[in-house]
């Protein structure tokens, strides 16, 4: 059973930050999808609802997604369906059900750096940055590695390019969380191979990405790159699958994703 002592609905980021950092137990409310499961003791629950962070904006050279944007909005947004083969809508569409996706937010998912996340894996293949109120703009990759000191994730910025991106996932039951997921993207031979739900959080497979950029992209090259990804990343076991199984299907998902990008 969770407990919340107070609730704040600040009007500015500055005020939000003040409340958030006033006490260690003060916490920002995200989509709250998983709140009930835990037994967290929250001092002040800080709600970002008044900060106008629910947006998907198409700019000249970028697309920005506000922290309070729900997965359902991402799933149905015409801009996101249009760009990057619609990888973001596709990646979030598998997650449980419409109702949950109407609650879960982009910001909370990224800030929590969930290992099982499909959204993060897809986003990581798109050169995305995150904007933190205090920490400023940092690459998603860096943020995933380092996290952030208590801060407010304001938005995500994705460079608007003709990057082609593909998402692959393996699930036991279709409404389950992924056993493994993968995203592969390419823009003018700049390849990104990303694997998540390992079950640790998503990571770029550098060697595999580089190899693809320099290879002839033959069938053998693709298989070798997939092999590289499985070798350079680490995998773990949980109730959804063993380390060995994840390693085995990593090759398959990455291979399939590369082929789909090339198709």
């Amino acid at each position: 059973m969770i407990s919340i002592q107070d609730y704040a609905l600040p009007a500015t980021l500055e005020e939000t930050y003040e409340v958030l950092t006033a006490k260690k137990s003060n916490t920002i409310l995200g989509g709250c999808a998983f709140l009930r499961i835990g037994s967290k003791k929250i001092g002040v629950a800080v709600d970002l609802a008044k900060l106008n962070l629910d947006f998907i904006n198409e700019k000249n050279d970028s697309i920005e997604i506000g922290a309070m944007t729900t997965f359902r909005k991402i799933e149905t947004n015409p801009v996101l369906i249009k760009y990057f083969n619609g990888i973001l809508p596709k990646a979030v569409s598998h997650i449980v059900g419409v109702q949950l996706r109407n609650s879960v937010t982009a910001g909370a998912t990224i800030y929590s750096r969930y290992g099982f996340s499909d959204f993060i894996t897809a986003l990581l293949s798109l050169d995305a940055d995150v904007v933190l109120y205090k920490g400023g703009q940092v690459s998603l990759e860096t943020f995933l590695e380092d996290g952030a000191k208590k801060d407010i994730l304001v938005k995500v910025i994705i460079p608007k390019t003709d990057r082609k991106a593909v998402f692959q996932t393996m699930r036991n039951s279709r409404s389950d969380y992924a056993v493994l997921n993968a995203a592969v993207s390419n823009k003018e031979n700049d390849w990104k191979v990303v694997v998540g739900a390992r079950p640790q959080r998503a990571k770029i497979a550098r060697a595999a990405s580089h190899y693809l950029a320099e290879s002839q992209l033959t069938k053998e090259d693709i298989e070798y790159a997939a092999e590289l990804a499985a070798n350079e990343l680490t995998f773990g076991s949980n109730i959804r699958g063993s380390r060995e199984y994840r390693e085995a299907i990593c090759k398959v998902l990455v291979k399939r994703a590369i082929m789909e990008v090339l198709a």
Partner: protein
Amino acid sequence: MKINVTINNQKRELEAAYDEFLVDTLRRYGYLSVKKGCDTGSCGLCTVWVDEKPILSCATLSVRVNGKNITTIEGVQKEAKQFADFLVNEGAEQCGFCSPGFIMTVLAMKRELAHPTEESIVHYLTGNLCRCTGYAGQLRAVKKYLGVV
């Protein structure tokens, strides 16, 4: 804290603790159609609409719906019965415990999907679990209700 909401077109002032979830507040105020099934956002039984959108009331803090418009199946009885007629004629309500949440999702889907297909119906409804019917009868009912061949 006090929250002011419109529930089923009625303005109401509710008292809810900061850590109370909407499902519990609604049940406490007598909206007993709203059922709890899982506590983990996995089953869809507690589905109600907030500003016309289906959400999980077990994953929504009551304080966050302050000023919003909430709809439970008690508020859309006429429309619910129109669909339930198809459901009941398939025998696909069975125990009925998941039906209110399921119907709220079906009615939301009807508003949202301009051209429903079997595939998009199944996708939209995936967050609603049912342990009795095996889903097949529910799908027959939805397709008949929406006129999907």
